């Protein structure tokens, strides 16, 4: 008897391919499915599926449910909800996973409500409890100061997963699986909102999430002009500059550069935390960086509990000589 699909991923596409978050869900979902001895499925909504079905299988899916329609081009809550509700109910998985993206965080709560189940949003870890067989969902709470572990008594057990919490597997072209085309059922009269347009606000330079090195300034920077120093510092590595929420709220930096629980989550090789206290809300956005260097005049600032290296002092006295010396050594090593 064929194994059942117990783990279902609701995937997203980016530029005609699976989004990085979706690949991660497949990687993590694969582990969960294997623990349960079950199959993993993925639902993909799009206007043009392209090769994404095969891609999904290569990344670990056993079944792909392709739903193609013009009206699925952009995310429109009620449309996606209607379509997905019917499909998910039909498949009846044990576990339902989405990525905590702009779409996921909007879609998941309402879908959970319609499925009469609960949702653990923004999870940083997922594991099957060996005794109960239930999915343990771990998520940060109190601004990231504490971790909560939840289990769900209803089905499906639903979670949205934070970027980089799970690892995608290496694509294996030899994997086999089923690709099914499903016609979406939609009652247009039930839609209550309409997507009009997307306005992209240009953020210069490397996107924060992709930068190898990020320099972030906080409340202690004191003003917008101070960020020029961070630009110069980040430039050394071709990195990006971010800011904490208070700095963005003060209008010093565009909120597109906000790093934190309600902003961008980054995990660069080097994270330079300048004049920021290291509140948990902020650390939630950068805590996974490989190396954190803190510069702060308060020796007891929270950031020093997270940093690998720190210098205590006023950033105005530290950054200029730091930048100069870096340029000097770099020039010297090139000669």
């Amino acid at each position, binding site marked *: 008897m064929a194994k059942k699909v117990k783990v279902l991923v609701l995937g997203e596409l980016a530029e005609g391919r699976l989004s990085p978050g979706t690949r991660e869900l497949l990687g993590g979902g694969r582990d969960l499915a294997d623990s349960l001895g079950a199959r993993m499925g993925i639902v993909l909504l799009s206007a043009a599926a392209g090769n994404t079905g095969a891609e999904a299988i290569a990344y670990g899916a056993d079944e792909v449910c392709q739903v193609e329609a013009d009206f699925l081009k952009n995310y429109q809550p009620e449309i996606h909800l209607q379509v997905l509700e019917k499909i998910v109910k039909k498949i009846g998985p044990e576990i339902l996973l989405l990525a905590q993206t702009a779409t996921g965080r909007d879609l998941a709560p309402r879908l959970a409500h319609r499925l009469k189940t609960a949702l653990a949003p923004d999870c940083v870890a997922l594991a099957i409890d060996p005794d109960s067989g239930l999915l343990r969902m771990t998520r940060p709470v109190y601004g990231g100061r504490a971790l909560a572990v939840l289990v769900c008594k209803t089905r499906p057990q639903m979670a949205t997963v934070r970027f980089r919490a799970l690892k995608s597997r290496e694509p294996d072209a030899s994997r086999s699986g089923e690709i099914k085309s499903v016609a979406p059922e939609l009652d247009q009269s039930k839609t209550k909102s309409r997507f009009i347009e997307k306005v992209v606000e240009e953020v210069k330079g490397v996107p924060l999430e992709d930068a190898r090195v990020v320099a972030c300034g906080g409340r202690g920077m*004191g003003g917008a002009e101070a960020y020029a120093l961070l630009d110069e510092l980040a430039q050394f590595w071709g990195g990006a500059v971010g800011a904490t929420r208070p700095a963005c709220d003060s209008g010093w930096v565009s909120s597109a550069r906000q790093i934190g629980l309600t902003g961008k989550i980054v995990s660069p090789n080097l994270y330079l935390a300048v004049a920021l206290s290291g509140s948990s809300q902020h650390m939630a956005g950068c805590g996974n960086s490989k190396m954190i260097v803190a510069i702060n*005049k*308060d020796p007891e600032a929270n950031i020093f509990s997270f940093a690998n290296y720190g210098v205590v002092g*006023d950033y*105005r006295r530290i950054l200029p000589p730091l930048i100069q010396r870096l340029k000097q050594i770099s020039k010297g090593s090139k000669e």
Partner: protein
Amino acid sequence: MLLDLNDYRNDMKRCARCSICKWPPLAQMKSWRFSQNCPAISRFNFHAYSGGGRMALGLALAEGKLDETDEELSNIVYRCTACGACDSSCKYNSELEVLWPIYATRARLVGAGCFREEHGPIIESLRREDNPLMKSKSERGRWAEGLDVKDLSKGGQAEVIYHAGCLYSFDPELSKVARETVTLLRSAGVEVGIRGAQESCCGSMAFQLGFQGEFIKFAESNIDDWNALGARKVITSCACGYGIMKAVYPLLGKKMKFEVVHISQYLDELIREGKLQLSKKIPLRVTYHDPCNLGRKSEEYVPWKGIEKKVLGQLIVREPEKTVHRGWEGVYDPPRDVIRAVPGIKFVEMERIREYAWCCGAGGGVKTTMDDFALWTAGERIAEAQSVGAEAIVTACSWCERNLKDAAAAQGKKMQVLDIVELVKQAR
């Protein structure tokens, strides 16, 4: 260092309802007219408003007999400038703490979420703009525009830092005093630095209103900043700041690498050392108003923790011995000496002076939230100054000055109010 009302139970229980808290000690009284020392009970009449009344309320709260959410309780608790006159009077004869149970009561109410709505904007202003006056932080350094002084917000260090204080920084009339202070210090050869727009509140109002968490943030931040800037001396004009830095900052357990000095003390030192010469005659009949926070409230407070033993079946003895802070060690003489150093000045004392001084009425958040009560209290002080024939009240606290000036204007009373720095400037 969070205050716990339970720590003061024994003090509150032992209040004998003798009413001494409502008057300066008998030996200090000079007339019936100016014989009271507590603005709250003088104004509102009921025992609840006196120091003893507050002890009874605090005890009832600690024992769970009062509902924290009661609005009338909040009215009584906050109609009080936390001036400490009750504390000093009581301690003339006893060793009971009165002022700290008052602080602890407020902390208890606030901690339970029972604070007054009027305090909301003050705390919000502290969080967003680092001052309780609802002014914008970016405007804070304006008072020093054009002054030849080191601005530490642009970088650098200084061994002597001048902390102007929120009201001196933002009040257009009083900011002249801050300017004159810096000019005076510079002319006396002091290498002083200011923090400009980066200066932030001392946290005194947050502490006095009972918002301890908020206070801790400001106090710790200031200590760290001054340590990091290499300060050896922090000179402040803000008497409230001086009081809280001396009495409460040490309780945080953070190392303070600097000494806190009030400008009146520093001026006194400079005059004695001959670095400041006062040569112009000022033939004015002046009196000096002791700000509560510079005087009786500025003694370093060491919370007593120990055991009480009953000896011979009836006497209570404390182990270890308790140091009682009666307010005698406040800053009283330096400002008086500075005034006396002004040529031609005629200095007269009011009746209620030094640790038994009558509060100006502004403290404890009263000026911001109950201006009518503040003005009445100031009116009483002005009347006292007039009764000794003074033409001017000299004082050394921005809030006292603001409140006294407002009261003189509102009540049509002819009385000049001078900051000690203004007097010194006129006499140079």
